[in-house]
């Protein structure tokens, strides 16, 4: 049972890391290679806020907005001129963002590891069915579920979500209705960037904050997004939970096979159901 709790926390953390990537791809059809760098930037910004104010919660609130502002700038200045061109330009551009963000982080914060402790509220573990589960893990489960539900309702049930989906599916028609598609695209990219940073802030108390942290996470994000279905928020949640549970059960009962099983799942998805295990026909978000 405790393995399930751990699997849930692993899955929902993965979802938080991958949500921004799937949103940007789903709405803009841009594969944002810089997602990992924005995640890292979120962690570093949160570190700076915690160092200055002593408040993790302020970091959780402010760092995503800072990353969103940077994301908006990236979209407005660099991505917008290349939407009409081949996808390769977007890939190269987002790859360029990685180099720029990484170098900026190195200049501002240097190479030393940084660290954030979980808030005092989560300093002690709780006993659940014979296991000592860190309370911060329980926070990740709750917070991840909240963000997943919020994203789902925003995109699927709100008027704004409807406009975003319409702008993604038929931008010309939305433009003729007097809605600025450019602004929607900027908003979506900024929102996705903010989500990447949010993942970075939530992960920061579990990991060392370091320059290469974005690179290692991007592979997991792509696995989640491919299994869940590119651009599918509901799929991203289920894909992340599937990976989290596979890893939790795998590390418990067959640790040597965990990575193998994860990649078999990825390859099987690409071969048998390339649109993702949890995608529905015609779904945009």
């Amino acid at each position, binding site marked *: 049972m405790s393995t399930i709790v751990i699997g849930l926390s692993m899955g929902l953390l993965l979802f938080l890391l991958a949500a921004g990537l799937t949103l940007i791809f789903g709405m803009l059809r841009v594969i944002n290679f810089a997602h990992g760098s924005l995640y890292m930037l979120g962690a570093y910004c949160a570190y700076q806020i915690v160092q200055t104010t002593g408040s993790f919660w302020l970091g959780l609130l402010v760092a995503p907005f800072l990353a969103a502002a940077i994301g908006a700038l990236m979209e407005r200045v660099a991505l917008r001129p290349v939407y009409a061109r081949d996808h390769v330009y977007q890939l190269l551009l987002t790859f360029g963002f990685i180099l720029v963000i990484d170098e900026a982080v190195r200049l501002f914060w240097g190479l030393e590891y940084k660290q954030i402790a979980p808030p005092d509220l989560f300093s002690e573990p709780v006993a659940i069915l014979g296991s000592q589960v860190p309370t911060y893990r329980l926070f990740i489960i709750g917070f991840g579920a909240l963000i997943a539900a919020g994203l789902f309702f925003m995109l699927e049930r709100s008027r704004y979500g409807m406009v975003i989906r319409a702008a993604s599916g038929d931008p010309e028609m939305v433009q003729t209705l007097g809605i600025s598609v450019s602004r929607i695209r900027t908003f979506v990219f900024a929102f996705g960037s903010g989500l990447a940073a949010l993942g970075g802030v939530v992960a920061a108390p579990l990991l060392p904050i*370091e320059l290469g942290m974005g690179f290692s996470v991007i592979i997991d994000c792509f696995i989640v997004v491919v299994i869940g279905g590119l651009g599918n928020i509901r799929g991203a949640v289920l894909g992340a939970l599937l990976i989290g549970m596979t890893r939790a059960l795998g590390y418990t009962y067959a640790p040597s096979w965990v990575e193998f099983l994860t990649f078999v799942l990825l390859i099987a998805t690409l071969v048998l159901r390339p649109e993702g295990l949890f995608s529905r026909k015609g779904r945009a978000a």
Partner: protein
Amino acid sequence: MNRLRTTILGLACATSFGAAAMLPAHADEPDAFKIGAVISFSGPYGIIGEGMKRGAELAIEHRGGTVLGKPIEVTWEDSETKPQPAVQKASRLLANGAHMIFGAVSSASTVALQGLTDQRKVPLLVTISADDRITRPNGSRYTFRTSNTLGMEMRMALEFTKARGLKKIYGVGADYAVTREGWDFYRAEAEKMGVEIVGIDYPPLGNRDYSVIIDKISKTDAEGVILVVTGSDGVTFLKQAGQAGLGKDKLLFGPVLQDELLAAAVGPAAIGANSGVRYHFSYDSPANRKFVEAYRAKYGEWPNSFAGEAYDGMSWFLDVVDGTKSWDKEKWVDAFAGSTRENSVEGTKVMRACDHQAMQVGLWGVVEKGEAPLPELTMKITDVFQPEALFPPCAE
């Protein structure tokens, strides 16, 4: 008369040839002693390069910036923690006349550099890479390591297990060849001592979530957990173990688990973690006191392991070169092999002629809360293991 003229001309020619034969020794004497440094300033071990640079520069400064009566010129190159750039950059440095290569950081890069320096017959000074294969009996003639080996560090972990009387151990080792070999050695030797191995996990390098492994360990009756991981992997494990309270009833230790840099990245959860330490500023020796004082005066902080090891290795090598009074690299190599450094920062070090590995004491410490001016989390050296217990004879 003609015979006399011929004789004089002959003598003149012979003298000229003789002089010419003698001249190159002076004419070829370079204007400077060139060191090609290829170390990590970026990549996974990018954090290490700056400390190494500072330590090596201080070693050069302490000898007035000269060796063999010539100024020392160092060219610093970034290996990017990858073998290919390391070899490319070292090749360029050698083409520009480097008299020795200093580096690299990752063992893979150092092994790659060995092929190059052996081929060019140029000394390679290693002060951080720990793979045992870098210095093996009848191995590279031109490679010298003045720092620890992983085998030595695994033996320190074994000595620690013995000293603390631990009888049940759980192992966690990063999943790559060197770590697995290290673990296999530890396991075999520990079992000979009557220690029971209650479990082992090999998470991948760069693993970000240890929660399942931590949960598994907490449900065993292991008294100690040996972590054969380092860098960010060790930091991640200790952070997550701290949140689950694993260290409350199990002793967490590892051969290269912690130092002040890594403890700062873990935070208070690092307190109580035990680790081998490659060098420590608190080690009491006259040379170390002098080095630490100079380092703090220059940089305003305590030297880390990388700085201490680089300072020690570079000082030793340059002293040996100076002692030969020759620009013949073969003489440097012959002199370094088998040399003894009485005034090393870690006491006496002996460079074994059989494998070019410096025999030295092994330091072991525990992370504690530091009081100013010490770092907030500092290593307290608890054990100093003697070289005889850490280095098997070359024949083994």
